[in-house]
């Protein structure tokens, strides 16, 4: 597709307006509740994130009432990072997951008393956490935050601009792959899943944290009200951007249900696929292994 080639060539998320002046025959994608031509979706998503990048934390706090921090903690504790790990965090531009992974590894290094024969520091130095994001603004915010945390010069932390559907990493190179609140923004989810399967080593783990579907009767009504009435209004008041928040809320509803998404993960080649609902399904952590 022309859109995909242009993205790869320039490496930046493009503004939808001036590039895609012709409709391609490849199909439509969901942009929230709207249907848009497939190759426009990435550009439009890019526009959303470029505009919210600087307020990303604020946006997350509004949408989740501060709970996103706990959800991310949970994701990383499930991952169980270990020193020497090669980890890829996709669509994690601002570095939330990457920082948690590194913190866990460094605190494990200090606590383990038994590895006397192996040179601990060497093993820890082998650790690599790659943060891949399609959006340069998000990566910039992430690099800034790394600097303020004192991780600016760390060789273990690598920022890469790239597309979840076409990763630049080698086959069988990663011990872990996480994607937190990113997969619903991908145009072709199955492609992203297949890429995840490709870059993981055998025995490697895939973890996806994503806003998902609530089925519990009364709570569902409350959640719907909060999502469609409250969030965009707060978004307008605080970040002056109602439309981005409207998109985000709609994209959650359009995302496949927990079981359907699990089926997609199995189809991409993963084994032992399970999911865990947090807060009655507001968020779900899906997990799979490459075997």
């Amino acid at each position, binding site marked *: 597709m022309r859109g995909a080639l242009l993205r790869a060539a320039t490496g930046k998320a493009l503004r939808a307006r001036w590039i895609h002046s012709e409709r391609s025959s490849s199909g439509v994608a969901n942009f929230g509740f709207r249907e848009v031509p497939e190759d426009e979706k990435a550009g439009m998503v890019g526009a959303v994130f470029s505009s919210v990048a600087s307020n990303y934390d604020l946006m997350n706090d509004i949408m989740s009432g501060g709970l996103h921090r706990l959800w991310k903690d949970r994701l990383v504790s*499930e*991952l*169980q990072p*270990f020193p020497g*790990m090669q980890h890829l965090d996709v669509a994690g531009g601002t570095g939330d997951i990457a920082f948690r992974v590194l913190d866990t590894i460094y605190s494990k290094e200090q606590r*383990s008393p*038994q*590895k006397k024969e192996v040179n601990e520091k060497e093993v820890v130095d082998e650790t690599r956490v790659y943060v891949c994001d399609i959006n340069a603004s998000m990566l910039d915010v992430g690099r800034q935050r790394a600097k303020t945390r004192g991780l600016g010069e760390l060789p273990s932390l690598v920022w890469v601009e790239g597309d979840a559907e076409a990763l630049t990493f080698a086959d069988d190179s990663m*011990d*872990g792959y996480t994607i937190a609140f990113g997969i619903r923004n991908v145009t072709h989810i199955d492609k992203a899943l297949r890429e995840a399967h490709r870059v*993981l*080593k*055998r*025995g*490697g*783990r895939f973890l996806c944290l994503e806003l998902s579907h609530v089925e519990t009767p009364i709570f569902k009504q409350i959640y719907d009200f909060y999502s469609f009435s409250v969030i965009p209004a707060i978004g307008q008041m605080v970040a002056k951007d109602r439309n981005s928040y409207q998109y985000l809320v709609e994209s959650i509803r359009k995302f496949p249900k927990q079981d359907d998404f699990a089926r997609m993960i199995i189809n991409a080649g993963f*084994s*032992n696929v399970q999911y865990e609902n947090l807060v009655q399904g507001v968020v779900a952590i899906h*997990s799979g*292994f490459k*075997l």
Partner: protein
Amino acid sequence: KEEDDEKRRVLNAALTYVPTLGWTEAAIAAGARDVNLSPAILGAFHRKEAALVEYFMDESLDELTDAVEEQSEELEKLVLHERLAKVMRIRLEMQAPYISKWAQALSIQANPINLPVAMKQRAVLMDEIWHSVGDRSTDWDFYSKRAILGGVYTAAEVYMLTDYSPGFRDTWTFTERRIIDVIDCRKTAKEVMQRLSESWKFRPVLLSGSGMVQAAQLAQAIGAGLGNTIASFLKQPRPGP
């Protein structure tokens, strides 16, 4: 299923690291690396160290069955208590390479989360030992036999932890003596029950004072020989018909 096979391969490779790394996640991670799997596979094991210990118990049970079959001729020449001692010795010797870390394995098994599986594996092991010495009875003795032998086995296992004699010689002596104690007790119980059922017509005599005292002493002796708590005794799964 494929995943279970992979997991078992990892655990099998992990056993070689147990003497140095203990029954730990580090051993499992090292095992994973040996079979070309990422250590991230640890996430697929729910009770990690317990999984390793349980795998060892299952494998040892299979090895015991095989070993007993191979040595069936020599075993047949022995008396019951010698046979029991020999089979127990075969099984306990499998723990010899890991003896420096076996106390850790016992504490993992004693953890309340892991205890049900551990008790079940031990019950199955006791059944297998009785079966292998040629005992085929299905009378009421079944539970007491399992419990009695379980007590002896556990005592020998713990004794072995601090036995520094060459080839664990002292442990085998200990085992044999305990079995002898227990076999006598078992025979007595069986004899008494037989005589009781035969001599129902003499019940006025049996219900006399001396009969009651003897019964009480007998109950005490069995209780001491059991060596297990009543709770674990009751938890053992029932045999088929």
